């Protein structure tokens, strides 16, 4: 068995904002295995998008990787640290072997170019095909993502397509060069529930057919349950727990993970049981407590939690950063 496709360890990202430097990612470590889907979950502002942009090498101009490694296994088996890869090299990987889907289907595609142009451009950049072969390949992709009357859509502009169709185009665009790693940053959040289910189905099917690994960013535990093999839970710029999806749902050990699972409706939860949102809010980036960032909101916190906490192994790839993990099983799940 080969090693992980993506192995992020102790990643730190800082932003310069109004003369101040803030740390958006303090300590992000997770592992994505070949052909698997790792869900990255966490509340808004926890650093999920920043993590994905750091992997793509597309952090905003005022941001930079300040530490850690992003080890990526290329299709040829060679492992590179993306944080130190020169931009020229990075550009070759970007789009071809590492592709990304973003959240906002309405604004993701350039309004002034046709669908065919935009998908074809990806091939133009990475794959030397003549114009006719390119068009054929684009058409195949549109058919693959189940766009009805695909041939007639090639020359459409984005505004002529619905949100769900655009997200399909985005998927076709991301997959046209057969990437081994797909980063999907909340690809279905902006879509309504039926369309969301269709897109998730499509992604699952394509993953099976094309064998890529997916880093799936979401804050929806329902989606996690549907798509993920493994889950990494993020809080205030750090991973607090990573485990296989079954383990995580059966034995969530970090109080924050428990809170997340408790604050959303779950299938199997008895009718009438109150959903308890986690009290308090995420501390602002410039005022992080020195120890565990969740401690101020945690019922189990004590003096020990004022010290820095790092991920440690509970067994079978279940890792947790907590001095007082919860140990009992969750019922009803």
């Amino acid at each position: 068995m080969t090693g992980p496709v993506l192995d992020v360890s102790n990643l730190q990202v800082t932003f310069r904002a109004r003369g101040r430097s803030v740390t958006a990612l303090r300590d992000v470590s997770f592992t994505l295995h070949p052909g698997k889907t790792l869900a990255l979950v966490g509340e808004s502002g926890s650093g999920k998008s920043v993590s994905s942009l750091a992997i793509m090498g597309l952090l905003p101009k005022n941001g930079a990787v300040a530490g850690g490694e992003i080890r990526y296994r290329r299709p040829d088996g060679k492992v590179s640290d993306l944080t130190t890869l020169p931009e020229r090299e990075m550009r070759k990987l970007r789009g071809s072997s590492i592709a990304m889907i973003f959240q906002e289907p309405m604004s993701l595609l350039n309004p002034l170019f046709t669908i065919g142009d935009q998908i074809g451009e990806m091939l133009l950049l990475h794959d030397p095909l003549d114009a006719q072969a390119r068009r054929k390949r684009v058409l195949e992709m549109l058919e693959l993502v189940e766009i009805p009357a695909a041939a007639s859509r090639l020359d459409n502009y984005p505004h002529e397509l619905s949100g769900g169709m655009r997200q399909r185009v985005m998927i076709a665009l991301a997959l046209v060069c057969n990437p081994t790693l797909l980063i999907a940053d909340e690809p279905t959040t902006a879509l309504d529930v039926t369309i969301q289910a269709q897109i998730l189905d499509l992604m699952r099917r394509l993953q099976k057919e094309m064998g890529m690994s997916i880093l799936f960013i979401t804050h929806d535990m329902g989606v996690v349950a549907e798509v993920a093999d493994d889950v990494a839970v993020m809080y205030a710029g750090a991973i607090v727990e990573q485990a296989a999806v079954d383990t995580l749902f059966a034995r969530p050990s970090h109080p924050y993970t428990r809170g997340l699972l408790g604050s959303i409706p779950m299938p199997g939860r008895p009718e009438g049981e109150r959903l308890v949102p986690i009290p308090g809010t995420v501390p602002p980036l410039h005022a992080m407590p020195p120890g565990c960032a969740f401690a101020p909101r945690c019922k189990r916190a004590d003096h020990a939690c004022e010290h820095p906490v790092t991920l440690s192994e509970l067994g079978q790839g279940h890792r947790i950063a907590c001095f007082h993990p919860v140990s009992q099983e969750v019922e009803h799940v």
Partner: protein
Amino acid sequence: MARYIFKRLIGMMIVIFIVLTIAFIIVRLAPGDPAALMLGPDASAEDAAALRQQLGLDRPIMVQYLSFVGNALQGNLGESLFFNQPVTQVLAGRAEPTIFLSLFSLLIALVIATPIGIYAAYRRGSFLDQAAITTAMLAASIPSFWTGLMLQRYLATDLGWFPVSGYGGPDTGFLERMRYLLLPSIVLGIVNSALILRFTRASMLDILGEDYIRTARSKGMGERRVVLRHALKNAAIPIITVVGLTFALLVSGAVVTERVFNIPGMGNLVVSAVLRRDYPVIQGALIVVASLYVLINLLTDLLYLVVDKRVKY
């Protein structure tokens, strides 16, 4: 599309009709006898009567109006009182320098403003960005006659790189005539680049923050392609608008520069016509410039259609 153009053409005709009406009324609104006004205080009563008859001012006002509009639509804008030539001929004789001056100025303004505007937006907040904005503000706030006089003095008189003023004589060749326009074009180009630069920068800044720019980057293309292909096309519409407006303003408003460089263009003509109370020429210039405005407006709107397929009319 054809329907849209048809609708626009009808609109254009209405606007031109209104302009004709205004031009007609203006002359009649001046207090006193228009003929006496045109001839000045020294004219005799017989002269005034003769002119009234020549201009048809002795006929009922509705008849005057209809024949004025009818003539104008046939391209007859009357006779210049000063030149004793048809107004259309007088205007046509002055159109060449003004049109080329406007075109060159616009070209120079574009060549200066768009690359700097794009670069300033891309490197927002950098030294070059700040320098560009400051210079643009300066260029826009210095009156064009001053810039004109300075450049004329140093580049033409002292260094002899350009002709000092004028537009050559009757037998000056075309290229030679254009040479006379270079320095004034630079002056107007600099002045007008300020506005275009600011519009380009603002518009690019907007676009560079869009999600589809991030998508473009995620495809693994170089920054040049991101900026020049994916961003610039989207930023083009506001830029086209301001360029169209600038051109329209140039054609009608190069008066000061034409004066400074003594170029026999439309601006100069209108100023002299006002001083000489040559009403037919003033009327004619008003009509021509207004029509040009409307036409440029239409052309800009049609350009939107070409650039952006979402624009529906």
